[in-house]
């Protein structure tokens, strides 16, 4: 936990905050930091805006909604670094950043992430308290207003998948939902990064019905996963959440889709269970490199088709 920030290592929250400041200081022309709210434990929720102008298409990306999925925040940091480093050098990234913005939330569940570093590596939820229960935390990916109450099995505070007392009851969820809603005219895609199981998912999770633009989403997911596999032949499967992974309600992906963002995707990054949530740092770089290819493809698609 000592030492400086590194893209090849897992970074604790303090290092990530310092890194956000450093990125803004280094590239003020393309990076700005927006505080979109704060957590239950009063930690700031920062979004990094990558891009130059305000009124244009944007992609919102978040990482670390589940505390123990450490490779996810590692990817968001990698993305910001690669995007800023290759702007003006790499043809595709230059074109993307000349024409669109990326909003990157490097750690969604800040309190949970800190807890997973300091107290319990296996922690998943946030750190909110609940009346009449000694159990702590809400699963932020069950707390969005998307068929929120439909799963009775997520209504106990002691469960790892507890959905919270009400939709958007959690400060973190509310902050993200408000930010996305206030930028709805520009945000054309929403991408959330989880681990593990190597999947690229799209709506819906709360129903087995297919979204109206299903064919379009399949096409993007298919080519996205193909692009990803070109680097190290890592195989990802893709499809709607409900049939590809399992049915869920209250997910950010379904919520963003129903809000009108018609290209919403969730990555379940490496691996397939050999390490699970304990992916060694030596795998961060290859995981991020291959994921970058899929994200760049999705961004190019959004630029061309929205």
């Amino acid at each position, binding site marked *: 936990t000592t030492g400086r920030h590194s893209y*090849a290592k897992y970074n604790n929250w303090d290092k990530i905050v310092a890194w956000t400041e450093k990125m803004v200081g280094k590239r003020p022309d393309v990076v700005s930091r927006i505080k979109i709210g704060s957590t239950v434990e009063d930690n700031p929720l920062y979004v990094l805006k990558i891009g130059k102008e305000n009124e244009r298409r944007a992609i919102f990306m978040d990482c670390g909604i589940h505390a123990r999925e450490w490779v996810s925040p590692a990817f968001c940091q990698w993305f910001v670094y690669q995007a800023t480093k290759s702007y003006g050098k790499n043809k595709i990234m230059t074109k993307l950043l000349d024409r669109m913005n990326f909003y990157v939330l490097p750690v969604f569940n800040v309190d949970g992430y800190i807890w997973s570093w300091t*107290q319990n590596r296996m922690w998943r939820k946030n750190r909110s308290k609940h009346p009449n229960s000694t159990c702590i935390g809400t699963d932020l990916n069950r707390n969005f207003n998307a068929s929120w109450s439909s799963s009775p099995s997520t209504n106990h505070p002691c469960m*790892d998948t507890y959905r919270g007392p009400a939709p958007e009851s959690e400060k973190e969820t509310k902050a993200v939902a408000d930010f996305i809603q206030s930028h709805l005219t520009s945000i054309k895609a929403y991408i959330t990064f989880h681990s593990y199981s190597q999947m690229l998912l799209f709506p819906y999770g709360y129903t087995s019905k297919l979204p109206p633009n299903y064919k379009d989403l399949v096409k993007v997911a298919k080519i996205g996963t193909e692009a990803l596999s070109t680097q190290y032949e890592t195989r990802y499967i893709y499809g709607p959440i409900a049939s590809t992974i399992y*049915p869920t309600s209250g997910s950010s992906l379904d919520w963003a889709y129903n809000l009108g963002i018609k290209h919403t995707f969730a990555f379940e990054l490496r691996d397939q*269970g050999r390490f699970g949530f*304990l992916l060694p740092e*030596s795998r961060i770089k290859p995981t991020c490199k291959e994921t970058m290819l899929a994200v760049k493809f999705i961004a190019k698609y959004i630029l061309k088709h929205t």
Partner: protein
Amino acid sequence: VAPLRFDREKVLRVIPQDEKQTNVIKHLAQTNELDFWYPDAPHHVTANMTVDFRVSEKGFQSVQSALDQSNMHYEILIRDVQEEIEKQFDVKED
């Protein structure tokens, strides 16, 4: 407060073949403190699904015997979670 340790805790993988075996997993989740890694909760477990969960050192024997009694094959993905937690930091400082 000292961080929680996971010495000798294991992560097991099972693939229940039918509803009966699925119910064995769900029952184990009720009687033992299992941490579901995939899927993220026992109610998502269905037949032919790969199921990964973490079990404490104390709970392992009873889980093992329940799986054996039900003729359920299992694989130990991680033998010692604490060891794996320490091994995840395998990159030296730049």
